[in-house]
């Protein structure tokens, strides 16, 4: 299978979704400019032109309402936000209206909008360009929330979102944009609401989301020489959450570490931990550990950023703790020299 970068997979999924359904259109800041939202909308614009891919004012609330109103008339709008933090300005439309629509009008009509947004991380993104809102949107019945980690799912979940009847929030991660992986050329859907066991293991389950999935896989590799066999579960969808896959994994391994891209408190990690407590308590052989952002807004300065975000070593240390071993056994992870160049 050929290899694509995460952003290329998004771009391809979008184009194939637009080919499949002429009612799909794309609106957002910069979707038709020379950067094309980090390359994800450029091909769609080249293929379908300004009638179906167009820029909008920075007016998140109205633009989301606009998408809802078009969707109610049969369209399938994709609203693109280069940074997820701007979604706070769209929450009335997304939570108070789109999420409620089908229920409070009891199926009289539906508003299948797709809201794409990108979570920033690193390079001093700071407090208001780095937040990941899965627990916010995942809290409300009526929305679907997906968080692709691998390129194939970035494409597959895009295609799924464009076929869902529900309003779907796609939380992409900027730190994943240059990562590569096999992606089928055919428009293969990743079903919404399904997690994936990316690496089977016997000793401890790491349930991870988005960019933390890659950290979890790296942690599993770090722990291999130490004889700790980690199972990595990629949640892929925050809502609906694939509880069966998660619970089955926890029951198999008896240990659970949850690694999220947001704060643990009231977060996706808390939800997964609660799930284990409710449905796998008897199987647990160690306390559940939640891992996420440090409990402060995102700092800018590099040494602060490094301790703000958990990484594979943090995950590996917690995995070791669940089997009663000390983190000191881990060799320090070399700081990876990123090929990334600013300004972002």
């Amino acid at each position, binding site marked *: 299978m050929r290899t694509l970068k995460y952003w290329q997979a998004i771009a391809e999924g979008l184009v194939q979704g637009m080919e499949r359904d002429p009612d799909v*259109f794309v609106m957002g800041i910069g979707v038709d400019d020379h950067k094309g939202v980090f390359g994800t909308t450029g091909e769609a614009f080249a293929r379908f032109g300004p*009638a179906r891919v167009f820029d*909008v*004012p920075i*007016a998140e*609330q*109205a*633009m*989301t*309402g*606009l*998408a*809802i*109103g*078009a*969707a*109610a*008339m*049969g*369209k399938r*709008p994709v609203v693109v936000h280069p940074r997820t933090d701007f979604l706070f300005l769209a929450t*009335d*439309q997304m939570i*108070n*209206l789109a999420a409620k*629509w*089908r*229920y*409070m*009008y*009891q*199926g*009289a*009509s539906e508003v299948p909008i797709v809201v794409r947004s990108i979570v920033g991380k690193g390079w001093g993104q700071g407090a208001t360009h780095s937040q990941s809102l899965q627990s916010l949107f995942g809290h409300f*019945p*009526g*929305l*679907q929330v997906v968080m692709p980690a691998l390129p194939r799912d970035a494409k597959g979940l895009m295609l799924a979102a464009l076929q*869902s*009847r*529900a309003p779907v929030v796609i939380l992409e991660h900027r730190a994943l944009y240059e990562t590569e992986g096999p992606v089928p050329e055919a428009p293969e859907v990743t079903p919404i609401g399904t997690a994936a066991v990316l690496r089977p293991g016997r000793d401890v389950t790491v349930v991870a989301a988005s960019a933390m999935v890659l950290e979890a896989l790296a942690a599993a590799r770090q722990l291999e020489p130490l004889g700790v066999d980690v199972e990595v579960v990629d949640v892929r969808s925050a809502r*609906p959450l694939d509880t069966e896959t998660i619970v089955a994994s926890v029951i198999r391994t008896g240990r659970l570490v949850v690694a999220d891209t947001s704060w643990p408190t009231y977060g996706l990690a808390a939800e997964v931990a609660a799930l284990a407590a409710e449905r796998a308590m008897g199987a647990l052989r160690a306390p559940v550990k939640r891992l996420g952002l440090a409990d402060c807004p995102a700092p800018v300065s590099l040494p602060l950023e490094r301790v703000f975000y958990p990484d594979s070593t943090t995950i590996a240390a917690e995995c070791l703790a669940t089997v009663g071993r000390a983190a000191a056994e881990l060799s320090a992870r070399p700081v990876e020299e990123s090929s990334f160049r600013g300004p972002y």
Partner: protein
Amino acid sequence: MTSKPAPRRGRKRLGSRRRQPAGSTSPKSEFLRRLYYELLRVRRIEEKLALLYQEQEMRTPAHFSIGQEAVAVGVCAALTAQDVIYSGHRCHAHYLAKGGNLGGLVAELYGRETGCARGRGGSVHLTDISVGMVASSAILAQTVPVAVGSALAFKMDASPRVAVTFFGDGAVDEGVFYESLNWAALKRLPVLFVCENNLYATHAPIWVRQPKGTEIYRRAQAFGVPAEKIDGNDVFAVYQSARRAVERCRSGQGPALVECLTYRWLEHVGPLDDTDRGYRSRRELDAWKRRDPVKVAARQLGALGVLTPPAIQEFEAQIAEEIAKAVAEGKQAPWPDPRDLLRHVY
């Protein structure tokens, strides 16, 4: 420029429920009588609902439209069945004027499975998609951009349909109103903004919320949107203004705004007179009641020789019968099954 009317489908909106008693039989006279009939019908329905509301069996916060009916009726008379409308919390009149099913409204207020939203929406979340009443919602200005979005869809499809958003002077205080106007104007979308200015946002008069000397319709003009302020208690004036605006929308010239000055007779939410509460005076209400849209229309049509007292009596009887039937059915309609609690969640 003349507009190309959208094809009519389904039942006609105005007064087609029953044969109308004849006065003058010209099409224009017939149309004017239908307009009056609709106005009277909305009034009588709202009066009855407000009365029944006091039995404490409609467990849903209801914002009655009494006093403001001419806006809904006048605007909807300028629309086709394919045009769509959106509304806010005070939405009964809009729903009814667009042709929304009366039984569906009554049953919705009683929380029954036969309600227009099957008892899940309540008074502020009405829908009757079959007649183009798409949605209403309780958050101010929330459906303003949604109507603009529907207009965008119409334009993309080169469809002659028009979207209308009804909102109040309170909604104009929301930022999303301006975001929506901006985009509608920029893209020349077929959307009619109808501001039902009843001078109060809940209990706050407009003069404590908006700068003296400013006018809502002028704000639309600042975006290049043609706008006018009219007497919202004159159903014929509303109709004429809406018709011009809708023609403009339909012919691709872009959005328009109509600010309709009107007044709410009952309390903000609930069925009672609240002039003893101190935020507005009995005298103010009485002055507006002298401009009762139903009486104003009757006087105008009477003077034209189009409407006679016997015709009004026959209208009253028809309407009373329709309401009685809807209420009886609504009260006896089945409750939703608790096993269906989660239906229609994704």
